[in-house]
């Protein structure tokens, strides 16, 4: 694989240069709190939203997980919410990019809803594969994404930005990776049709929408078709989860980024036998999990800041 893709910005010189190039056309990327900083643009990230708005991405809360890598994911989710509450600018909304639960159990969904009910803003959810075990997501959509179409997707607008929530965890059996399926792709094509190319688009879905490491299912089989509908837009931000670590890729006007989990980290692509929970010393856990703030400036440039819970 191309290891450069799996590096977070700052981890390699090439990654740094990519980010700087993109910063020139509108996106600022930074990491706060215990993680090496790729760019010294944190101030810019905070300054950008003066008159715009921010939103927050949380991911992979894995409520119900009880193993050594994090015996108390409820507490780390709560810590994530506390961290969000301390952000200088109040986010307009939250986006949860899936794996709300660990085993798709009703009690886990109950607990997640209980912890998350302290959030005053709307939370827009898409499922992870851990949320659809055994029932194709029936419980999940009833509880967390009633607005989804029968194709399991939805969109909404906020302050001129078009947000699209997609589900790419229901075709694992066929694709051996993430996938949207034809019904959802048709919906996406229609949803985007007629929108001005200057509309900033934010797409959120659980599994990475570019092939980070297909051997572990870290890819979305039919993402290229989704991208074919998106590429005419001037600014496309794709927010994914699933791999419990921050990885970024820039491709023309499209930026792809995976987010931290709020529960536990996973190994880098191909390191070790499997994408299993990565155990770190308890005192280090909060420096490898976190949340993401996305700032949208009035001119519709987007600034992404990944914040650990340390």
């Amino acid at each position, binding site marked *: 694989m191309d290891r450069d893709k799996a590096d977070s910005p700052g981890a390699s010189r090439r990654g740094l240069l990519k980010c700087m190039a993109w910063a020139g056309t509108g996106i600022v990327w930074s990491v706060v709190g215990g993680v090496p900083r790729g760019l010294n643009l944190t101030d810019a990230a905070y300054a950008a939203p003066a008159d715009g708005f921010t939103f927050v991405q949380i991911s992979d809360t894995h409520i119900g997980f009880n*193993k*050594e*890598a994090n015996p108390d994911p409820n507490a780390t989710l709560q810590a994530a919410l506390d961290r969000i509450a301390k952000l200088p600018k109040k986010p307009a909304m939250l986006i949860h990019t899936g794996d709300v639960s*660990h*085993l*798709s*159990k009703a009690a886990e969904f109950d607990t997640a809803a209980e912890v998350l009910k302290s959030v005053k803003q709307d939370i827009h959810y898409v499922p992870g*594969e*851990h949320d659809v*075990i*055994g029932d194709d997501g029936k419980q999940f959509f009833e509880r967390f994404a009633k607005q989804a179409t029968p194709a399991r997707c939805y969109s909404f607008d906020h302050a001129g930005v078009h947000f699209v929530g997609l589900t790419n965890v229901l075709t*694992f*059996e066929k*694709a*051996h*990776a993430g996938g949207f399926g034809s019904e959802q792709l048709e919906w996406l094509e229609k949803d985007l049709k007629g929108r001005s190319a200057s509309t900033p688009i934010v797409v959120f879905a659980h599994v990475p929408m570019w092939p980070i490491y297909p*051997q*572990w*299912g870290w890819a979305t089989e039919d993402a290229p078709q989704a991208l074919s509908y998106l590429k005419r837009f001037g600014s496309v931000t794709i927010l994914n989860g699933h791999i419990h670590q921050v990885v970024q890729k820039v491709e023309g006007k499209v930026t792809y980024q995976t987010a931290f989990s709020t529960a536990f980290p996973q190994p880098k692509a191909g390191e070790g*036998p*499997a*994408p*299993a*929970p990565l155990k770190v010393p308890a005192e280090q856990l909060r420096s490898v999990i976190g949340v993401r703030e996305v700032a949208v400036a009035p001119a519709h440039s987007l600034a992404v800041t990944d914040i650990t819970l340390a």
Partner: protein
Amino acid sequence: MTNSPMRRLWIGTAGAMLLASAGALAQQAAATKSAEIVIENFKFVPATLTVTPGTTVTWSNHDEEPHNIVNVDQPRRFRSQAIDGGEKYTFLFDQPGTYKYICAVHPHMEGTVIVK
């Protein structure tokens, strides 16, 4: 279908009564034929398991991650709920055939049960 487990149990028991020395036959005919597949490091071991009809197959998850067992046939013959680390799932294979399955949580994990 005459080859139900109960019917074969009855035949087997009768056979054992007729052939008192045929201990092996009696053992084979017991309705508790079983086989195990271990899930370890995101692999099914063995990846291909061959059993005779009437065998109960147990998948034991030795990973910390949850897995599940989903038959890829249409219509689907079996699908488990989440099997967390340390948990098991069993399915009785009473029909001959080749059954491919995956873990739908980690779809790169594939296995096959051959019943003949």
